[in-house]
């Protein structure tokens, strides 16, 4: 069991590393539904801030989509700003947040 777990954990690590190695990617974060950052490549205070802010935002977006059409579901969220782009892949339990430098 442990071996499998370790393998799988390794896979997860690999996936996240792969994402990090992509061009222009600055930060990768994994946050759970309660707003606790599970994994992050940034320092703690900033991570906390992002986690809290994103959490509210994601819930709002998700509820908006569901309200307009209950059959619909939020699949991806991108916030493009002048300096960077925040991409959020939401799930039932966890959110994967990636901050990338926009292509210009």
């Amino acid at each position, binding site marked *: 069991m442990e071996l499998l777990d370790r393998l799988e954990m390794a896979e*997860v690590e690999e996936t996240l590393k792969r994402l990090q190695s992509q061009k*222009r990617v600055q930060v990768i974060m994994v946050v759970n539904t309660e707003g606790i950052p599970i994994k992050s490549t940034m320092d703690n205070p900033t991570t906390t801030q992002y986690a809290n802010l994103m959490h509210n935002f994601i819930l709002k977006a998700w509820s908006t989509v569901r309200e307009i059409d209950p059959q619909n579901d939020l699949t991806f969220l991108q916030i493009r700003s002048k300096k960077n782009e925040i991409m959020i*892949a939401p799930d039932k339990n*966890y959110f994967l947040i990636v901050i990338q430098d926009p*292509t210009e």
Partner: protein
Amino acid sequence: MEIVYVYVKKRSEFGKQCNFSDRQAELNIDIPPNPELAEQFVERNPVDKGIQCSTSMSEHEANTERFEMETRGINHVEGGWPKDVNPLELEQTIRFRKKVEKDENYINTIMQLGSIMEHCIKQNNAIDIYQEYFDDEDAVEVTEEAPSAKTINVFRDPQEIKRSATHLSWHPDGNRKLAVAYSCLNFQRAPEGMSHESYIWDLENPNKPEIVLKPSSPLVTLEYNPKDSHVLLGGCYNGQLACWDTRKGSLVAELSTIEFSHRDPVYGSIWLQSKTGTECFSASTDGQVMWWDIRKMSEPTEVVILDITRKEQLESALGAISLEFESTLPTKFMVGTEQGIVISCNRKAKTSAEKIVCTFSGHHGPIYALQRNPFYPKNFLTVGDWTARIWSEDSRESSIMWTKYHMAYLTDGAWSPVRPAVFFTTKMDGTLDIWDFVFKQCEPALSLKVCDEALFCLRVQDNGCFIACGSQLGTTTLLEVSNGLCTLQRNEKNTASSIFERETRREKILEARHREMRLKEKGKVEGKEDDQREEEPILTLEELVTKAEEEFFDIIFTELKKKEVEAMKKSKPDLKADEEVEGEDQGEEEAAHVETPT
């Protein structure tokens, strides 16, 4: 009747404490109604009362409760940790995190989300999905609307005996006023009792002119001083120049003396750019151009006689009908004459003869309008006879561009001050043509029938949108042109200048060709004269033929004789005799053969 109530208090009671008490009302004065007063009034019947047919509305004011607002900041503190985990303790948090990472759910989720995320990241890297296309190109302002113009206002001559509006001038500041000169240009056909007055109209009020100008003789031209908007210069029918100051009234402020003025009506008068703003010059069909200073109108400061043979003879001078002066070229001015020639002059020349620089001829009749293009001063527009022509200063023999011959005589023309390729012309049949030669060259872009009688003059306002034209019966019409004709189009300046250059070049090439051909012809004519002097007896064709025949036979006979002589010489030695004889026979045969074809 005074109503008085007197308050009484005893002196001893002054300063005493006041005791207030209630008491009943007392009737002090009772004024009964006096029916006699009613006699002073008359019952009003009918009564005028204004009413408004609209929904009656009432106005109420209400004060709402104040809405209190407060600005607060939020301090983010880590939270959401389960009860057993203390967020401050690093160990516990790490332990918690590790536990979560081992969770299968977590692993699956991350794998799934990871792939989605990867896709988007790669997409972002590959292409900028929010890229602005066509950012560099400015919004294309395509004026799809057809050129149009509409009449805004019509100003009619309030006099009963109608005179024609011969000249218009816009007020220099703000263009809210229009000065119109009225006179009758038909020679000695001005009807009795025709008023000499000219008017200044306010654009808002077409019923009554704002200011009336009263000269002693009707005005043919009228110009506002561009520097001082209260001063106007007018050229009279009798040749005098008059000056007005609108602050002083409608009578003439300054008038030139008859002896030194023009002998014919003053057809052109323009203000000059000078420091004092008081200099002007005028031209007339008597062949003179005079310079004046309005402070001293008794004598002109300078006189130039338009004699193109440069002998300054008044008898051979050409009469001037139009005058042109551009303030950007202060030393040059141009005069359009009755004979159809434009004379370009230099003001600063030392001798009067040198003042006339060059002439441009091409019109068949008087040149009624002459104006330089405001963007390209080297090119100027002339309007006369049945055409309008555009000239370039470089090409002196002919105009570079011209319109076709119209059915009616053209009376006035002007360039648009905002678009280099647009100009306006008026005709004797009452039409106003708007030409745009980057759009269409063979006919006007827009042709409008303004009125039934002939249009005599035209003036464009400085913003290029409003045009005023005056007609034979004194009616001045104010038109507004559509946006497309008064806004500078993209690339129009370049297009217009390239058209001018191209046409100028074409004319130059044609000129050069003409010159060559003329030289050749001259050469040919001279050459022919030389040849003819040698051949004194001029022979006819038959004689030539017989002469040729004779010459031919002479040559043959001399040849034959030569051969016979040779034969005789060589017949002595017998060895060669036969060959000789054969040769001779052949020679004779040839000679015989040769003879027959002739």
